[in-house]
């Protein structure tokens, strides 16, 4: 064990150096600056403080909103960490009935939008729902389940919705770990649990922390679920101030408070990742060999996986299917076109976000300057903002630019011209990138951090250029992380609602828009079909990721 630690520390990645201005730094800073515009737009609202609104909030609810938000964050953080890590360790480290299926199926809840799971849960477990109704019939009128519309209820639901982030990253991290390290620990007489606790967990720490912080940022930004559950968080407060008092400025200022939370979260993440980086010098060897489980242990492992999958995915989907059957109008939506639009946007967003994240993360590796680190952190905060806020943050500067641009055209042509960028796919993709960049950077950073810097040096000393090193050394080694990043952004974009609603081009509706149009009218039966289509379309990238990652390691981990 000591040997493992020592060797890990021996190849610790170089630390951030002093401020240097290389072309990379300048280039990356420019990219980041473009991505930072919407966040700056949100922060700039602080220049005109709406003191009167703040005073009212302070007197009535700010304390409760902050306390609830912190509670939610802590609950979701712990919940997703425990569930995601435990499941990943089970499917990577052990053999038990159904493991092959669970390994990919446990990612499926990703494909279901959080608000849909939330609503399906309420539909099932509410007082008027089938579960409690059955309970009352069986046990009498007084029979009740614990109230789902509570802090605990929403933590459970969000944990079930967001654990796949941790699971996905942890699974990749566990699988990328070399078998040799593990075998060494095992041969030294460590039990599987201690191997997990003392070797696997510390070595996967960057990925775990990245996954948990993604889940927490997602919880911070969520509006749909907290609104459905009537649980008041800062994000709920933003909407209340915005649409209940029509105080957009004050709402944006409240959103700045969310950014503060996000900044703290990112700082915490830095601290938790720690200075020492665990790199793998021999991970191209055989992957971890799963330990076969027998008897009740095997049964328990199967039950745990089945329970999580059943509650987080099967139940809501069944509820959606029931609603779909009851739906008054089955058709009514041009599904082919909606699907095509959704997939087009999602692939573009995933590719662009992945590419930009790669540039940022790679620049930080080549030139670990404080500036690059700082800008990467800063643009990552977009993920903690509610979609509507980031969308307005995009809309306002884009429209300003557009008016200026069109003004020039009008002057040249001598007649009035329509806006070009506002309400174009470009503006929408810009919003997606700003919102989901954190997903890609976090994932890629965790993945790239595991490649030993000595590889870079070796490649360089053999005369391979920078791009050659990236293409031949880093990308193949980061493949798992890159895939994860692409899949996550793809699925996130498919589910994204507020920015899509506000910024989409005319007539360019997506499946999420279809869901929203119906849910906003409480027509849940009619919304079930587009929602199911999102789920089905979300399966596509998940399957693709499984296949591609299986190819890499032979047979997806193989048998014992």
């Amino acid at each position, binding site marked *: 064990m000591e040997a493992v630690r020592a060797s890990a520390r021996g190849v610790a990645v170089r630390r951030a150096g002093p401020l240097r201005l290389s072309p990379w730094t300048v280039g990356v800073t420019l990219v980041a600056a473009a991505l930072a515009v919407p966040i700056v737009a949100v922060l700039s609202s602080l220049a005109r403080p709406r003191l009167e609104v703040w005073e009212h909030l302070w007197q009535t609810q700010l304390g409760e909103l902050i306390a609830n938000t912190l509670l939610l964050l802590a609950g979701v953080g712990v919940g997703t960490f425990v569930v995601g890590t435990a499941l990943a360790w089970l499917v990577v480290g052990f053999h038990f009935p159904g493991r092959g299926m669970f390994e990919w199926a446990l990612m499926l809840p990703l494909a279901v939008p959080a608000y849909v799971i939330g609503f399906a849960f309420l539909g099932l477990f509410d007082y*008027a729902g089938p579960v409690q109704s059955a309970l009352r019939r069986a046990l009498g009128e007084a029979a009740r389940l614990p109230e789902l519309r509570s802090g605990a209820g929403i933590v459970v639901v969000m944990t079930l919705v967001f654990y796949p982030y941790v699971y996905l990253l942890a699974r990749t991290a566990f699988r990328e770990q070399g078998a040799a390290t593990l075998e060494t620990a095992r041969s030294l007489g460590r039990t599987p649990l201690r191997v997990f606790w003392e070797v696997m967990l510390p070595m996967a720490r960057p990925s775990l922390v990245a996954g948990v912080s993604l889940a927490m940022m997602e919880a911070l930004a969520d509006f749909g679920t907290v609104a459905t559950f*009537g649980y008041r968080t800062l994000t709920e407060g933003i909407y209340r101030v915005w*649409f209940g*008092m029509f105080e957009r400025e004050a709402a944006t200022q409240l959103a700045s408070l969310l950014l503060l939370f996000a900044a703290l979260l990112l700082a915490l993440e830095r601290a938790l990742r720690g200075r020492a980086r665990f790199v793998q010098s021999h991970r191209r060897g055989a992957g971890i060999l799963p330990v076969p489980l027998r008897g009740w242990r095997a049964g328990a492992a199967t039950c745990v996986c089945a329970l999580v999958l059943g509650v987080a995915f099967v139940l809501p989907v069944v509820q959606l299917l029931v609603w779909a059957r009851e739906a008054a109008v089955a058709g009514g939506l041009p599904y082919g076109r909606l699907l095509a639009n959704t997939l087009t946007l999602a692939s573009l967003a995933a590719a662009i976000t992945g590419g930009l994240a790669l540039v940022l993360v790679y620049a930080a590796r080549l030139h670990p300057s404080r500036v690059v680190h700082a800008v990467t952190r800063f643009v990552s905060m977009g993920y903690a903002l509610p979609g509507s806020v980031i969308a307005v943050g995009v809309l306002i500067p884009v*429209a300003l630019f557009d008016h200026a641009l*069109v003004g020039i055209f009008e002057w040249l*042509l001598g007649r009035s011209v329509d806006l070009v960028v506002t*309400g174009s796919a470009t503006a929408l993709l810009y919003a997606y990138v700003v919102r989901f960049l954190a997903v890609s950077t976090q994932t890629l950073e965790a993945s790239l951090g595991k490649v030993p810097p000595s590889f870079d040096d070796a490649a360089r000393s053999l005369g391979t250029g920078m791009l050659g090193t990236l293409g031949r050394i880093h990308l193949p080694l980061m493949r798992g992380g890159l895939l994860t990043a692409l899949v996550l952004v793809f699925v996130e974009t498919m589910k994204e609602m507020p920015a899509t609603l*506000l910024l989409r081009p005319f007539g360019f509706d997506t499946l999420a828009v279809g869901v929203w149009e119906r849910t906003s009218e*409480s027509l849940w039966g009619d919304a079930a079909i587009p929602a199911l289509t999102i789920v089905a379309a979300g399966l596509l990238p998940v399957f693709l990721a499984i296949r591609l990652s299986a190819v890499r390691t032979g047979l997806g981990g193989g048998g014992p």
Partner: protein
Amino acid sequence: MRQTVALTLLTLTVGLLAGAATGHAAELVVYSARHYGQEAAFEAFTRKTGIQLKIFNGSTGELFERLKAEGERTPADVLLTVDAGNLWNAARAGLLSRVDSPELQANIPAHLRDPEQRWVGLTVRARSIAYNIQKVKPAELSTYEALGDARWKGRLCLRTSSYIYNQSLLATMIKRHGEPRTEAIVRGWVANQPVLINGDTKILESLATGQCDVGLVNHYYLARLLAKDGSFPVGIFWANQQTTGTHVNVSGAGVTAHAKHRAEAIKFLEYLSSPEAQQMFADLSFEYPANPQAAVHQLVARWGKFKQDDINVAAAGEYQAAATRLADRVGYK
């Protein structure tokens, strides 16, 4: 390099010119935050006039932001949305323009449209008391205020105060009774420890299953459930018939401040206010037509005529912020 720039500019210019050649046929652009029940009326308008409608659906607050950002270059001609408070706020933000149309004024009663003629209500929603018909006798019910009586303790289901139709109800009460009296009324509700439920349909289901006995809902949600299941055990009681009348809200529309097709937009609103179009709204959505000449859906007609609160629905906007603050103060979440 220079060639590239020139080429790009040329392409852009050609593109814009091509857009100009095709872009301005007879069509109206409608930004809509109402997504249900208007389809038939819209199609009939296009059939009658040949004017094509381009609909951009969104949610109210966000549509406002888009309109604001697009400014004088907005493609939108008409803004269609739900809730009088939203319409009032759109007008206040300068997004709508005044329309002096004798036809609109004749078709729509004065309390359902903007006193300054920047928007008109097109359909009417009554927000009143729903009750479990097995557990509550109509004689026990009277007013919104009386839902604060101790007898409803633990028996009341409400939406949260973030919900726009509840904000509008409170706002109208503030206009009617002033803040202190309204505050006392809402304190009464809160003291009855209402179950806060997200969704009018969910409230109705809670009433049917016995989680609570009385609640406040928009009437058409009950109509939708009754249309599916005639034996649904919930009834509606028209609140405040002896006093101020039942609170009503509207969905409505206005012509945008920078409409490119203003004449067609006005024609569109006039058509939507006509008895013919109003009938189509009522048939599809179970709402009350704003135009009294159109008939209500037979399912809704069974509930009988009732006295509407005839205060101008614009009050919902004027006092919306005050209503939100009041709810925060008394702890109505």
